[in-house]
């Protein structure tokens, strides 16, 4: 045996993995470690006692309790609302179904700040639901979280439902089970993995939500994520922030581990068998009604947002949009919103190619067939490593960037790439999770067949992988683009004052008094929402099942 065969595979693996690992090392591990260091080492000496002291504070207890409580309730509600819609949108066939499907996916990619603004507009004193006096309550936060995440349930459970073999249900019906019994005894158990998996992801997103809680919770309600933000920016209590970051990191890592175990077996890319959707029958009325209600619930905040942006002083007007070229009342902004939009788009383009190229490398590395147990372990280790950004608060990441990448050897303080890099890292798990199931679904024998016909490794990839993966790749880039446009947590630390992105501008506008400023915030939100929606509609047209399925 020559050196070539024994070492060429591990060397190729290492060669492909080295770039993403280095990038993640410098731009993720280093900043997060820097942040933790800041907390543990007070005045140059290791002081873990202070961290424990932080975890004993009553306010921290309240924050942790609120985080767990709100995430749990929001998850339960999202699952209960999402299940009927998943059935209606993935098992039934009716006119306009695809449009409804796309519409219900939109909230998931709406920038968090936009969602916050929309809910304040809906529930505020002057809003259509103002009489409910929900503005600033925990209910408002819950509604925002559910609004955001119900799409994940519909997606995750819907795709599983779609690929469910209909025969066991038919067998049960033939044995005398009514539709309800069939659902409880056959369908629901078969869907359980998908439901648990979707619920755990929703819980994860709810528990780490930042923009929604910050804009809707104000100072009364704080989750761990917003508390880290307040502690670092307003109170400069880095030890407390680090303590909460660690708590969050541990909790989220544990949750990811559990979610990974429970994750539904991926449907696979190439040859998925899908039961044909059928026409709605009388028994589907409940599901259809529930879907309509959900659609109204999702549309209401967006509709009020749009109508609010078109109202000035009680009349219809485009003034709010015209004002986007100005810097607002009382110079609320340093640059006009239109400039911020250009910055946002540029940043999103950069973040997209970064996360895409990294995500593609990672996906290739983790899905290649392993020839030994050690190789398999390395690959699954890498898989987990690149999921880490999902588990770390974007705020922690942003702040870590600020304190570790501002001095030689890596000084990126003024680099135009600082924000895109941070956003690319936040989008990376999304990209990897979209591409990995597709690549993993390719039968490795296809590549072997190509090789045995004389195709070299690169040619084999072009023949076998590319035709299957290009659509998911496009979808992933749309996803990354939308995520980058709306990213708020990390960007709020890193964007320079004279080059803000749109979400930053919106947040600043709602924090500044003056009716014109709020109007501008509404208009800017509409513009941002419209942009991400268009991107998402394009993605939806690609019909990639793994989009948004974690």
């Amino acid at each position, binding site marked *: *045996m020559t050196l070539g065969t024994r070492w060429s595979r591990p060397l190729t693996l290492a060669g492909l993995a080295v770039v993403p690992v280095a990038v993640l090392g410098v731009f993720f591990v280093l900043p997060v470690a820097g942040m933790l260091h800041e907390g543990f080492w007070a005045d140059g000496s290791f002081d873990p006692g202070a961290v424990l002291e932080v975890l004993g504070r009553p306010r921290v207890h309240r924050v942790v309790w609120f985080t767990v409580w709100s995430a749990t309730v929001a998850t339960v509600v999202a699952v209960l609302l999402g299940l009927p819609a998943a059935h209606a949108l993935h098992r039934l066939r009716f006119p306009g179904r695809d449009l409804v499907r796309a519409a219900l996916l939109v909230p998931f990619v709406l920038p968090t700040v936009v969602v916050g603004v929309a809910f304040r507009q809906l529930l505020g004193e002057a809003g259509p639901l103002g009489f409910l006096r929900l503005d600033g309550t925990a209910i408002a936060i819950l509604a925002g979280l559910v609004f955001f995440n119900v799409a994940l349930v519909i997606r995750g459970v819907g795709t599983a439902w779609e690929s469910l073999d209909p025969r066991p249900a038919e067998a049960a019906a033939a044995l005398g089970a009514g539709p309800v019994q069939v659902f409880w005894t056959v369908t629901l158990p078969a869907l359980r993995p998908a439901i648990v998996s979707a619920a755990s992801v929703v819980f994860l997103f709810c528990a780490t939500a930042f923009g929604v809680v910050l804009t809707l919770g104000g100072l009364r309600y704080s989750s761990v994520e917003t508390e880290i933000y307040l502690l670092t920016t307003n109170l400069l209590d880095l030890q407390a922030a680090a303590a909460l970051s660690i708590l969050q990191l541990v909790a989220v890592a544990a949750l990811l581990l559990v979610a990974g175990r429970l994750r539904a077996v991926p449907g696979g890319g*190439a040859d998925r068998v899908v039961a044909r959707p059928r026409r709605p029958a009388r028994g589907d009325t409940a599901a259809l009604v529930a879907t309509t209600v959900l659609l109204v619930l999702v549309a209401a905040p967006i509709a009020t947002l749009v109508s609010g942006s078109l109202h000035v002083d009680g009349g219809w007007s485009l003034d709010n949009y015209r004002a986007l070229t100005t810097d607002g009342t009382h110079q609320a902004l340093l640059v006009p919103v239109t400039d911020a939009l250009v910055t946002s788009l540029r940043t999103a383009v950069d973040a997209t190619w970064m996360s895409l190229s990294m995500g593609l490398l990672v996906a290739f590395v983790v899905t290649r067939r392993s020839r030994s147990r050690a190789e398999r372990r390395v690959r699954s280790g890498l898989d987990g490593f690149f999921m880490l950004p999902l588990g770390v608060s974007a705020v922690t990441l942003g702040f870590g960037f600020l304190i570790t990448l501002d001095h030689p050897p890596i000084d990126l303080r003024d680099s135009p790439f600082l924000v895109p890099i941070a956003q690319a890292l936040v989008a990376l798990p999304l990209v990897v999770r979209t591409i990995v199931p597709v690549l993993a679904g390719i039968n490795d*024998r296809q590549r072997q067949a190509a090789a045995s*016909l004389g195709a070299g490794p690169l040619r084999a990839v072009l023949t076998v992988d590319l035709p299957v993966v290009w659509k998911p790749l496009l979808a992933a880039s749309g996803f990354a683009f939308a995520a980058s446009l709306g990213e708020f947590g990390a960007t709020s630390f890193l964007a320079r004052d004279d080059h803000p992105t749109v979400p930053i501008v919106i947040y600043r506008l709602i924090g500044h008094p003056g009716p014109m400023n709020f109007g501008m915030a509404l208009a800017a939100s509409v513009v941002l929402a419209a942009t991400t929606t268009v991107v998402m509609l394009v993605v939806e047209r690609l019909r990639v099942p793994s989009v948004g399925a974690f």
Partner: protein
Amino acid sequence: MLTLDDVSVDYDGVPAVVDVTLDLPDGEVLAVLGPSGCGKSTLLRAVAGLETPSAGRIGWDGHDLAGVPTHKRGFALMFQDGQLFSHLTVGRNVGYALRIRRVRGPQVERRVAELLELVGLAGYAGRLPATLSGGERQRVALARSLAVEPRLILLDEPLSALDAGLRERLAAELREILRAAGTTALMVTHDHEEAFTVADRLAVMRGGRVVQSGPIAEVWRGPADPETALFLGYARVLHGDAAGVLLGAAAMPPAPAVAVRRSALIASPDGPLLGEVVSGRATPEQVRLVVAVPGVGEIDAVAPLDLHPGPGERLRLAVEAAKLAVIPAGGLPAAGAHSRDP
């Protein structure tokens, strides 16, 4: 000529193939026959370069193939399920290897048409794989493998994904096609009928080892041990006195053990054995019986269709020598026992 010298393959230290030595002369078809899990597919993959042997040497015409990657070996591998590229038409699938070798234009089309003709699918070039039946897909896969006249074609259970009737027909066609193309082929299969139809030589594998190999008729006539005999389609293996009685009736010299095919005993008015019918079942061609023969025990026999003896009836039986195979003493365990097909 393919040569395997003491080749072993491990998966994480678990041996899958152990010390396999085989030769395959040019132009011949070798079938590696064995139950699932015996390591035959791993052996094939090692020859293809998809697994690295942990010991031993795989060579072609005297050159060691270690370190030669799959795509440079010039061996075509055909999978059980074809593995056609679903986004390419039949024509482009078949022409794939030609294009990789930079053959262009009308030459490719001519060769593709020729190959499709060879596998009986003339005019299918524009179809997509998804529109083909299982048998058609396997034919396309075969044509694709043959396109660049590979030095060796490796067939991994090429017909086992097909239904029985089609499998039988395609096995005969496969032999004709391989013969016509003059290709050297290594095929693994668990179906002995398929092996007999397609191959010239046979290697029987069990537990990662080749337990017997040689020209197909030789192996068939002289299985090395009882297990091999049963795997080759012999219905029972008789030992000791029972073997003696049967061999005597066939006018063959006595031996410690003999493998018996299902149709070795035939109802015949002047046969040397007398048996009592235990059960009978009519098939379209003959009546299959189980008879109890004194000194032998229960054994299979056949009778012509016009004769349908009921249970308890006595019957004279002749033994066809060509359907018995004497097991050499070297292949027997220390204590002989009556064993039969599961």
